[in-house]
């Protein structure tokens, strides 16, 4: 079996330097946030206490990081070992997505110096959905670093440690499947308590189920996207045949999701809201159309072997899942009393800075650590 290898090459490419530049600017805004408070850099308010840092960096960011989960689920639960070559790059994307979601949380919470309270038994509230998310995401970040650590250990030449770790790795792989199942569904449950403040197009007791399914096809979308881009950019082996087989599973999963999604809205009697022609109705239609189109494409076997179609489907699915999460956390959320929210410049820039670190880390990892399998 081919081993993963570092791709090598220069680190300080123009892309890397541009990301570094963006990150340095975002540091100014981060500094401002810690000196003057959240109000100084964000448009968050008492009506919209959560903005893009939670909706994008945490809720969407961790879904971006579900590639590792989606693949591990297929490989180990559905016994599809042939997908193994895709696993390590996916794991890396997950690691970055989740770690930086953690960074975003530290910037976002008001009383960050007391953040450790959620680990103190006398402070935790077991009824809190957010506690479950926080502990579970925290544990998963740790599990991801352990799962990914063989690459570091190989680089450091600590082969003994690596082989020892491999013996108990099955525990971490199992945890790596369990934990995302728990917190990705809970990210949906988080908004159940918002009740009347969330539009009925999104508010449902099925939020946890919908979040769980959507994170799996989101993870798949990211794996395909990342695989296509890397193959193009670094002339890696074409993985279209593997991705194509996976896509059939995704088409069925999306079909199941759409059935649940529409049946739920219809049964609760709110489908009329979708066709009102207003922002919320259109967002609902757009979000589901972005799933319906790739689903139809992927149901045709011939399409699944065409790399461009796979790529476009993946992009559409990622956009759909992103929009769904934005809709649940911001666009469909209306606290009443005339509150409005649109992110501030500095707020957006901090999110951009976080994505920039993610890209820089990605570039460094694939060039210096054994992530990809060479042709």
């Amino acid at each position, binding site marked *: 079996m081919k081993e993963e290898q570092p791709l090598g090459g220069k680190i300080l490419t123009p892309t890397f330097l541009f990301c570094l530049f963006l990150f340095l600017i975002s540091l100014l805004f981060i500094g401002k946030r*810690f000196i*003057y*408070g*959240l*109000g*100084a850099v964000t448009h*968050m*308010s*008492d009506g919209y*206490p*959560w903005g893009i840092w939670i909706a994008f960096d945490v809720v969407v960011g961790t879904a971006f990081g579900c590639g590792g989960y989606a693949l591990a689920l297929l*490989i*180990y*639960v*559905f*016994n599809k*070992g042939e997908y193994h070559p895709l696993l390590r790059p996916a794991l890396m994307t997950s690691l970055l997505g989740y770690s930086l979601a953690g960074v975003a949380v530290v910037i*976002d*919470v*008001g*009383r*960050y110096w*007391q*953040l450790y*309270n*959620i680990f103190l038994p006398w*402070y*935790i*509230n077991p009824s*809190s*959905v*957010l*506690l*479950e998310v*926080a502990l579970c995401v925290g544990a998963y970040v740790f599990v991801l670093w352990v799962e990914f650590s063989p690459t570091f250990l190989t680089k450091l030449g600590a082969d003994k440690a690596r082989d020892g770790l491999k013996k108990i*790795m*099955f525990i971490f*792989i*199992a*945890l790596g*499947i*369990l934990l995302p199942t*728990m917190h990705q*569904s*809970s990210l949906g*449950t*988080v*908004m*159940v*308590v*918002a*009740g*009347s*403040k969330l539009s009925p197009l999104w508010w449902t*007791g*099925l939020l*946890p189920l919908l979040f769980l399914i959507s994170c799996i096809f989101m993870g798949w979308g990211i794996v395909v996207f990342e695989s296509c881009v890397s193959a193009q950019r670094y002339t890696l082996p074409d993985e279209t045949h593997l991705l194509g087989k996976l896509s059939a599973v995704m088409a069925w999963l999306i079909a199941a999701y759409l059935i649940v999604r529409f049946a739920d809205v219809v049964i609760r009697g709110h489908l009329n809201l979708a066709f009102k022609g207003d922002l919320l109705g259109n967002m609902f239609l757009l979000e589901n159309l972005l799933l319906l189109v790739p689903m139809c494409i992927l149901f045709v076997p011939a399409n699944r072997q065409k790399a461009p179609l796979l790529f476009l489907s993946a992009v559409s699915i990622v956009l759909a899942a992103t929009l769904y999460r934005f809709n649940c956390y911001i666009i469909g959320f209306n*606290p*009443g*009393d005339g509150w409005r929210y649109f992110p501030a410049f500095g707020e957006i820039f901090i999110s951009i800075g976080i994505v920039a670190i993610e890209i820089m880390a990605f570039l460094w990892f694939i060039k210096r650590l054994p992530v990809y399998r060479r042709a």
Partner: protein
Amino acid sequence: MEIKRRDFLKGVAGGAALALARPTLALAREKTRLPDAVGILYDATLCIGCKTCMVGCRKANDLTPEMQGVQNLWDNPIDLSAGTLNIIKKYENGTGQDKDREIDGYSFVKRHCMHCVDPACVSACPATAMTKDKKTGIVSYDKDACIGCRYCQVACPFNIPKFEWDNPFPKIVKCQLCNHLVEKGELPGCCSSCPTGASLFGSFTGLLGEAKRRKNMAPGKYYDFPLSSLESGRTQYKPAADYTPALYGENEVGGTQVLMLSGVPFGRLGLPDLPSESYVALSENIQHTLYQGMILPIVALGGLIFLVKKRGDKGE
């Protein structure tokens, strides 16, 4: 192998069925009113909009006035905020002539924490910074526990918890029914200062009885209305208004310890139209169904370890 996978899919289907069956489970968890709960009855028909309660609240809670205007002399907050825990607002319609009338009339409305029977903020808070007193039912906040995640603000159907957005070391701020005064047998600042009895403190059961008595009054006839608290002994003799049938807070999201009476429908006064079941019940039922005693996750982990070990041995 095929059979195994089918079993797994069955499990998934079972989970989905469980999720669908949740509305019935919601009945299993019922939060009832505490026997010694205290509260406030706000009667908009008695309120004259003098805002003395807002001053009383500032004094009782050591809050500095939110000065506005060119000369910075006027304490005039436009809404609840981290600096204002209690506010009087005005509804006006058409010519705005008659008090307590929906059309061509006006009414005042007072907003502060409703002290829910099943508070969303208490359920939401990951660090137990929001607690409901086991005796009085007062919902209060502990800054030493709070991590500043603001989930309480997302969860509250009344938008009550407020955050210090311009403070680098911020807190959540909300009405705590002056529990520091109630503990000593004193009255909340808004009730002790109210000159008309529009804000009335008392035991919840007493206030509920008082509210029902008022709803049965004949409009225009003279009655005694207690001032400040049910037990103050001081009353005001005045004609009863024409109340709307609703008693806000009796059933909203499982009931609140603050009750409101008005001559104008509450929707017009800016109060949200809420179901009688709390959203907390559904949220906690989902959570407890899945995570009670961590049994389900532990079983799942066992199954996964078994599967991964088996696949791993074969695969690599």
